[in-house]
């Protein structure tokens, strides 16, 4: 296999892998930057995946090729609504944010499976017909070499994810809203004295994280699994959380970390076909992504500092 052929497989699959993680990781970024730990990302992805699939199955005859995109919007709305539960519990009622996040995870998978049984009378849905499919991006894919590598045999959602990551970075670091969001997560009392409504900012952040988590789940379900069952979302939300920490709570870092995870996974799969790796027992290749991640986390990125007020409920007037 030549280098070109290897890259032709690795790059598209890296992008495919990374897309759901980028969306969900960005969601976590909003919430944690505002000082609310969101361990419920997994659950929000479940809700997103479930909503996207059900919506897709119901409306594909009406909406035609636009179905997956509209379903993604539905997943976004569902994720946002669901995350309000987390916001109410952890912001208004100041519950432990980790406990509330875990509750979201448990509740979402239970609820989604229950509804699947109720609607379809079986344990998993049928596969969707209108999914995100492989495309060559017009014009860009005609560029020699680069077009083949980056813009052929890929999915639009991957590019949307990268684009959204850049937008989130701009919002978070270049706008007044972003500054307030970060202030609320670093030192809520100082923000409060400056007239920022801490509760409102945190609500917005958690709901945004729900929306993005829902999109992440919707992307995964419609670009990869194509149906919804109990194992559709199994750990991707936690991977996104890891990408968030790995990316040091920076949107572009999150994107880079998600792409790195995707790259490591693709490499572990293609490794078996590479001339210099083919004699390595496959188990080493399978664990390689995780080993690489641990190495990267411990050795290369240095200290990962969480936003200071992350995980601490804000109580007005309390020192």
């Amino acid at each position, binding site marked *: 296999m030549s280098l070109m*052929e290897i890259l032709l*497989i690795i790059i598209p*699959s890296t992008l495919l*892998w990374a897309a759901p993680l980028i969306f969900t990781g960005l969601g976590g970024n909003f919430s944690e930057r505002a000082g609310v730990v969101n361990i419920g990302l997994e659950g929000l992805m479940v809700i997103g995946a479930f909503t996207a699939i059900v919506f897709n199955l119901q409306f594909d005859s009406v909406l035609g090729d636009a179905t997956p995109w509209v379903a993604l919007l539905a997943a976004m709305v569902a994720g946002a609504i669901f995350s309000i539960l987390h916001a109410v519990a952890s912001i208004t009622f100041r*519950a432990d944010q980790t406990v509330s996040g875990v*509750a979201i995870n448990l509740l979402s998978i239970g609820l989604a499976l229950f509804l699947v049984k109720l609607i379809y009378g079986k*344990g998993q849905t049928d596969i969707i017909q209108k999914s995100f499919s492989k495309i060559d991006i017009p014009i860009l894919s005609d560029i020699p070499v680069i077009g083949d590598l980056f813009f052929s045999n890929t999915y639009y959602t991957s590019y949307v994810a990268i684009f959204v990551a850049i937008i989130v970075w701009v919002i978070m670091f270049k706008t007044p809203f972003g500054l307030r969001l970060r202030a609320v997560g670093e030192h809520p009392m100082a923000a409060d004295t400056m007239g920022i409504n801490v509760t409102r900012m945190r609500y917005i952040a958690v709901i945004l994280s729900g929306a993005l988590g829902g999109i992440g789940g919707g992307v995964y379900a419609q670009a*990869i699994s*194509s149906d919804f069952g109990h194992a559709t979302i199994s750990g991707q939300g936690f991977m996104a959380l890891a990408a968030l920490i790995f990316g040091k709570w920076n949107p572009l870092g999150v994107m880079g970390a998600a792409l790195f995870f995707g790259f490591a*996974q693709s490499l572990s799969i293609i490794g078996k076909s590479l001339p210099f790796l083919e004699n390595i027992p496959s188990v080493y290749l399978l664990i390689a992504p995780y080993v690489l991640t641990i190495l990267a986390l411990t050795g290369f990125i240095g200290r990962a500092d969480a936003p200071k007020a992350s995980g601490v409920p804000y109580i007005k007037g309390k020192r």
Partner: protein
Amino acid sequence: MNKRKMGLALSLALTAGTILGACGKEDEKETTGEKPETETPATEEAFTVAMVTDVGGVDDKSFNQSAWEGLQAFGSETGLSEGKEGYSYLQSQSDADYETNLNNLARQGYDLVFGIGFLMQDAVNTVASQQTGSNFAIIDAVVEQPNVASVLFKEQEAAYLAGIAAALTSESNKIGFIGGMEIPVIERFEAGFLAGVKAVKPDIKVDVQYAGAFDKAELGQTIASKMYSSGADVIFHAAGGTGNGLFKEARDLKKKDPSKNYWAIGVDSDQTAEGIVDIGGTEHNVIITSALKRVDNAVKDLSAKAAKGEFPGGQASTYGLVEEGVGLAPINDAVAAKADIEAKVEEFKAKIVSGEITVPEFRKDVK
């Protein structure tokens, strides 16, 4: 302070809601059987049988569903009704439920209790040693207890037939195999498939790769992408949910370039529905066929034996082509070589049934 307590209460309510929600329908199932033992059954001689599903549930389009269909078929043939006097099932929500459910059914006096799937091996072992008066059966695993019948399948025979279909369909003479985890069951699939391919086209190269998981569709998709782009035109999977990624990739590629061949072969149950792809208004299907594992036939057969008093306790029964424990689903009409494949499959099936060919069980035995 008060607010904080409210928060905790809300979190607790959410959690409790989830756990209770998950019980849902099973409640009624469980209560149907839990009548006090004082009630003297009118049909004491009637044979009763029940099964415990693994976490997949009774409608998982796979194993558990197939087993339940087997019980239903057995019930309707012998005139039993669903419930305590006939046949029933309990669904497991987590690994922790296996022992409880098995115990529960044994105490309710079912003559035979099935544990479906190798995940239940330990649970069946434990419960069988406690409830020595009841008979148990386990699918896809071996439990060495005098009151347990173990049911195994000759997956290699189904995979062998799938291999024949794959080899005859392939035009590029490159074929792929995606395995879930490297466990004996999947190795049987691999060995049988390789042997089947070799039986009709000895010089074909089969690219074998294991994903390391049964529930990671994205792994299946990446592996399939790699195999298809390196020239394979038929891929067989024995990887459960990971195989969904294979179907997704095959559908996507077919949609992108309908003139080329991207075939897939399903496993366990007839997966034809997973392969439908709509290209410009016409429906295509990328699935050639599926290697079937007839858990239903095995469950039915074992129940019938037990009802006749010939319960094979302490033994491991293996169901192959002869016992109709495995098989091959109908061939896709769109495959050019359909008639040829069907003829060859019949030919080799006869040879396997007659014992002329023994399909290898291990990778190292494939020549």
